């Protein structure tokens, strides 16, 4: 995909940025588990899962910089934007918490990504369709793996059940944001380019609830929901995450590694 073949459309650029930032930030959070997971096999699993997300982020951010006409590279976008310019949902930036909360987030997000990419493979935008077809195979595996943990912990001991439920309760106020539409996605969805997040709510939750049932977990009912990530509004944690993600590139501008 050379840049000469890419048509400039700032709306498509913004859409790719949203999907790319979700993957980038969750890759960063998940990578924090490497060498800290409860068992060696899970260290490898979380490392590989983060690597898949990072790969998706690289493709999406590269495309975002081409589609918006700015010519920014994946590195420009990852390392040299400030907090308010990031378009990820708040769910992915939350601290990972314990293993239960980590699996709660990864499972819900993989379930959402699975439904998203299943539909994006039919996008009228060929680059987005190609990235989705590649990513779909990966997130199907993520959904399966994390779902197995949710069941194992939820339907496990009294303590594992308690912590799995607590993990769900922690992330739940941030889940609705995944399914929020705005003018940009509605317009792009009408053009057959994007997937309207509102259309993913039903199928994602059907899968999630089926797993909760098997895991003997209750779907939380939080008093309020958070959102704003798509407009650059983030939680307090985002600044700390970016400081760690970006400090090396910013300390040595132009360095290649």
């Amino acid at each position: 995909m050379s840049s000469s073949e890419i048509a400039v459309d700032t709306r498509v650029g913004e859409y790719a940025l949203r999907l790319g930032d979700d993957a980038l930030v969750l890759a960063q959070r998940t990578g924090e588990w490497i060498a800290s997971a409860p068992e060696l096999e899970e260290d490898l699993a979380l490392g590989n899962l983060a690597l898949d997300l990072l790969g998706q982020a690289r493709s999406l951010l590269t495309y975002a910089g081409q589609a918006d006409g700015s010519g920014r590279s994946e590195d420009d976008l990852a390392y040299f934007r400030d907090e308010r310019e990031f378009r990820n949902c708040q769910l992915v930036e939350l601290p990972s918490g314990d293993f239960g909360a980590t699996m709660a987030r990864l499972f819900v997000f993989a379930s959402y990504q699975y439904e998203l990419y299943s539909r994006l493979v039919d996008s009228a935008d060929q680059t987005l369709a190609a990235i989705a077809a590649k990513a779909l195979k990966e997130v199907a595996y993520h959904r399966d793996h994390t779902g197995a943990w949710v069941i194992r912990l939820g339907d496990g001991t009294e303590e594992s059940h308690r912590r799995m439920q607590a993990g769900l309760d922690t992330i739940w106020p941030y889940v609705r944001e995944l399914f929020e539409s705005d003018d940009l996605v509605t317009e792009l969805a009408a053009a057959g380019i994007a997937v309207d997040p509102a259309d993913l709510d039903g199928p994602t939750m059907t899968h999630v609830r089926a797993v909760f049932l098997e895991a003997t977990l209750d779907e939380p009912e939080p008093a309020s929901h958070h959102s704003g990530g798509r407009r650059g509004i983030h939680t307090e944690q985002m600044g700390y995450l970016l400081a760690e993600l970006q400090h090396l590139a910013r300390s040595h501008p132009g360095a290649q590694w």
Partner: protein
Amino acid sequence: MVTTTIQSLRDLVADVPDPEIPVLTIEDLGILRDVRSTADGAIEVDITPTYSGCPAMDAIRDDITQRLIDAGHERIRVRLILAPAWTTDWISDDGRRKLTEFGIAPPSGAAPHRSGPVTLTLSVRCPRCGSPDTRELSRFGSTACKALWRCNQCREPFDHFKAL
């Protein structure tokens, strides 16, 4: 400028090894998608990643470029293409045999289709003793493309290349 046929160009780069599984070439793996010469005299090579985040792609790109430079070519473009998405179905029979010899169980069966859930592999043969009595230890192995298995017969752990 060196005059060469497309086939000889392909032969030149086809046996570039995968840096993570060095017994396999990029041709065996199905990573090498196309080699062609363009109207402006450049050579274009298309490669596709096994996984979005496969860290081997940069090394493979450099190796291909170096091979072509060593053969006297100057204008080289290695393109990373995503569509159609790579599948383990593209691993050649020769590649599957080499994987087994290397101690990695090759993907068994065809890749799962997009609509269904991740299919479970019914029987993975131990690459060491050949027993079908094996079990999965972890869904993720030493690299993104492998899972960790163990043979119940000879008790050896081994990598299994996941069907994708």
